[in-house]
């Protein structure tokens, strides 16, 4: 019991305040906005899915290596549900095949997503979802870089900074409300 208290106390106050700020900035929208941000989004057709099992060369040749490519990464994130609509990010064209860049040899992946509206305060949540999904789906060696497409969001720089700050992401994921929300968005993409 004692040690536990000590641990709490030893937590640097700076970090505590940081995570508090984080909570506010990530969840802020819930309190601020009563209606939906984008009430009537345009829903697009989804593209045909590549059938992993039908790839004959990979199935017959035991030694061939399927490198991780942008299509595969896109498959991971295309089904993430939008936080405020029952549509996938692909359907809303928040993500497209071209928005993923992968360099397998350098273990680097960059996802550029396009929020549906410029002032979308969901952008951070969407970015967080994408990051979490990729963290769970890609090998550890990967560095994940997520950003808002240039010129599509009002506070582009701020969002980018927030999404790629390791500590801020970690802090956000300590918030049970936020994790619940992210998990809900991701649940459909694990099927």
């Amino acid at each position: 019991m004692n040690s536990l208290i000590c641990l709490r106390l030893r937590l640097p106050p700076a970090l505590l305040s940081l995570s508090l700020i984080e909570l506010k900035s990530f969840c802020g929208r819930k309190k601020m906005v009563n209606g939906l941000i984008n009430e009537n989004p345009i829903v697009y057709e989804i593209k045909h899915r590549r059938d992993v099992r039908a790839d004959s060369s990979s199935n017959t040749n035991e030694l061939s290596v399927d490198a991780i490519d942008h299509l595969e990464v896109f498959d991971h994130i295309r089904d993430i549900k939008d936080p405020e609509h029952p549509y996938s990010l692909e359907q809303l064209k928040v993500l497209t095949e071209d928005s993923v860049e992968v360099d397998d040899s350098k273990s680097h992946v960059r996802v550029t997503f396009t929020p549906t509206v410029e002032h979308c305060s969901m952008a951070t949540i969407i970015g967080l979802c994408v990051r979490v999904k990729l963290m769970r789906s890609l090998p550890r060696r990967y560095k994940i870089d997520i950003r808002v497409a240039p010129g599509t969001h009002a506070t582009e720089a701020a969002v980018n900074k927030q999404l790629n700050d390791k500590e801020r992401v970690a802090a956000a994921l300590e918030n049970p409300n936020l994790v619940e929300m992210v998990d809900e968005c991701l649940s459909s993409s694990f099927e």
Partner: protein
Amino acid sequence: MGSLNNLTEHLETYVDVSRSPTHHAESLKAIAASLEKGVLSLNQLVVEMDMYLTTTDDVVRARGILLLAEILNHLKSKPLDNAVVHSLIAFFTSKLVIWRSLRGALTGCLALIKRKGVAGVVTATDAEAVAKSMAQNVQVQSFALHDRKLCFELWECLVEQYPEAMINLGNLIVFATCEAIDGEKDPPCLMVAFHVVELLARLFPSPSGPVASEASDLFEFISCYFPLHYTHTKGDEASIPREDLSRGLSLAISSTPFFEPYAIPLLLEKLSSSLPVAKVDSLKCLKDCAVKYGVNRMKKHYEGLWSALKDALYSSPGRDLSFGLEFLTSPGFEMDEIHREAADLLQRLVKQDISFLGLVVDDIRVNMVFDTISRYSRYEEMPDTSKLEVLVVSQILSVSARASVDSCNIIFQTFFFRLMNTLGIVEETSTGDLVHKENSTVSTRLYHGGLHLCIELLTASKDLIPSSKESSSTPGSAQQSWSSIVNRFSVSLIGAFTSALQSSNDDCSADAYLGVKGLLAMGMFRGGSSPISRSEFEKILTTLTSIITAKSAKTVKWELALKALVCTGSFIDQYHESEKALSYMGIVVENLVSLVRSSQCSLPYPLILEATSEVCSTRPKYVEKMVEGFEEAFCSSFSDFYVNGNFKSIENCSHLLECVTNKLLPRVTEIDGLEKSLVHFAISMWNQIESSVVFSYDFNGREFVEAAMKTMGQIVGVALVDSQNSIIQKAYNVISSSTLPAMESIPLTFAALEGLQRDLSTRDELTLSLFASVIIGASPKASIPDVKPLIKLLMVSLLKGYIPAAQALGSMVNKLGTGSGGTCSLEEACDIIFYESFASGNDISSDDSSKSKCGSETLLSKICLGFYGSLDLQTRAITGLAWIGKGLLMRGDGRVNEIALVLMECLKSTSGSGNALHPSAMKHAADAFLILMSDSGECLNRKFHAVIRPLYKQRFFSITVPILESLIVNSQTPLSRTMLHVALAHIVSNVPVTVILDNTKKLLPVILEGLSVLSVDAVDKETLFSLLLVLSGTLTDIKGKQSVSDNAHRIIECLVKLTSYPHLMVVRETAIQCLATLLELPHGRIYPFRREVLQAVTKALDDPKRRVREEAIKCRQAW
């Protein structure tokens, strides 16, 4: 008295609303049953129920009446007294007035009115009273769904069964129906309501009747439902499908001609709506109306109908002619539903009234098409609108032509000359006359559009030719003026199509397609009155055949021509065109078969074979011809090979045999007489081998031998026992006259066998292989001569390493003794196999080293254990033993146990006498278990008449597994341990899963150990995979749950290791899937391993294979 007590009880139960519906149903059933049996009379019941039927408590009374009604419903077939029925119906009719007891009253009326045929029917007067009461007192729309449905059903019954009574009611009933339908929204009720309208219309056909006078009102009530649209699509599974309801509505609308002034304008208006469903519905409904309303009434709407039809036909978007192979016998483009319905309606209208055709013929758009056609010569060059124009017009014309002979005549008279003119077949002279240019095919202008239109017209007209039977009875060939028109132009037309076909080059499929399709259309006129003469038909066939024989490679054109020939062939067969069949036989079949025979042409041999087999399979007669040709071709190629050493011919032989196996053998059951000719083929194969005494040229024709074996085996497999006997006899004669029997007399000492330097000659090998396949294919009933020497022969060849010989031996011991003509019993055969064959040379059996510890002292087993001879001999003996064992195992013979013991002995690190076994021998012994347990495609299966005892695998499993388990525990070297595990894995993975599931507790530890042992070496990867599949089977089943849970830690440990198995991707994938499945175990049981699993799966995220990564992501998320 007891029954009465029971009755009261049941009555109480039913009347009590608080009881559950099942209770109600039970008591109802009980009462009905006792009435049915006659224990209780209806009078008694009514007296007993008196209180319930007359009480002032509304609820109880309603239940009571309902009970009585339901009981009557159950007694539909029980004869009742007329007086009883009368009083009952009067009772129910009176209750119709009171809304509380309405349900019971309706059910009762319905039950009584539905009675028919049996004694006690409701009289017409009573029915009239019911109807009157219904019409005056029942406000249908104010009730709940079920009651409304009952009302409509009652109406339906009344109108259907008491038409006279209803006619008396006249207007009243029509009014009542209108009132009842008004505002109805539920499909089940509407369905009945529409039927009522239909029945009413039938009831009052006179123009002064109530329906005629109320037509506008009645129509208003039903037309508001058109087109049907369901607002609640989900939820009502029991509801009526939209199609049925729409059909009902359509029948109601078309039920009486009095609706015509209102219906047709409405339907035409709906047809112009943008909703596809509305269009389809209106077209369907218009079709019904056209039939029911009659020509006179429809006539005034023709203009409107025609323009609406045109719109519908032109409007369906995005159609294009495709030149695919599959469209050769169909219109050539996709049609959507609207289009199909519109075409149907057009045909119906033209069929009904030829004057409708006047609109079509005079239509400007239709006439314009000839300009369009002559503007573009190539289809691809046309703009989309013109394409559409041509397609639609050709369809309009062909559909109308198809409607009747008259319409066809008109269309041909009006359009065909113009078409011919456009195509350049007819030319206009200066005087304005049309002159037919007989021999000027040169000037024929090949407009694709025109050709297409022409083909469409020809195919349409060909359907009009009555079948041969009808044409003999109707002398009306004079009226078929279209036929004479076609006849006049047939030569030029064939010329045009031929030149289209010939001018086409490979990159343009349109020319070839249209040419072939045209020829096909011309060739498919049936009957004696066909406009195409026999010589012209033959010309068509010649053209098509020449395309096939001239081409040196498989092109689109080639395939099209072949398909067309096959179509023609099956057409001839279908309509029994004897004359054409002769031409076909003479031109196509003989030509191709002679090509097969000569094998001297530019076309590659496999292509000739393909063409021949496709064409000939259209008729049994051709097949016979073909087999003859094949036989001859085989003989000549084969002799060409052994006389001249022509390797090309032996290659051709292999192709030919493959063709026989793949194309002909599967169809033996369909074609009579094929079996006989195939047997003949097999015998002449043997004749050839017999006459080819020496092969002057060596060849390494593995391919040929295999093809020959396969064909021979399968022919024997499908042949009848008698034919089998003749083949076997023939084969025996050949083999006994060959050099092979010399092997029998080879001194069977091991030294001699080892020293036997001489390999089999090519011919001997061929003979032996073929003979083996004959034995493999033979049924148990066939008799094999001289079994003993043959067994010896096979034994020697087996030890020389010929697997077919081993398989033949296996088949032999499997089938011996069950037949009648066996010259040798199973006992004797086994004696020969196991002891005798080597005893003649050296008295080895007295050799003291042979006193091994293995259970049975057989010679073969000693060779297996490596006492004598080289390693080669040992491995061959082991494999041979496995096949023989398989034969024995399948018939359920006990000797297989000894064989299993010997094989297991081989797996021990040291054999009984102490000398170490070679690893390769052990490997072979382990694989022998695979041979024993797996289903083989080559021999010993149902196709080859094997004797199969049920559950033989299970038996073997229960005998061997305990022994193997104990051997594994006691094994001394890692190698032996691995091999034992391989053997066990073979057994476990080939036995049905249910057996495994019954023994999970015992087996699971062994399987897990096996998995970890096998994962060491890449050689065993397939075995490892099949074992892993067994494990995954146990994980998912409920039976295995307990032991899986007990062994969870070991399973997880094992699976985690396998997630990084480097040699086989599917192993990694399955292992990860298994890990995901394990999550079904109790949480507390698996939670401790979470960390471990997650680590392993995270590593698998970086797997080189995408499939594995995908599974890993799912599994990781799940854990």
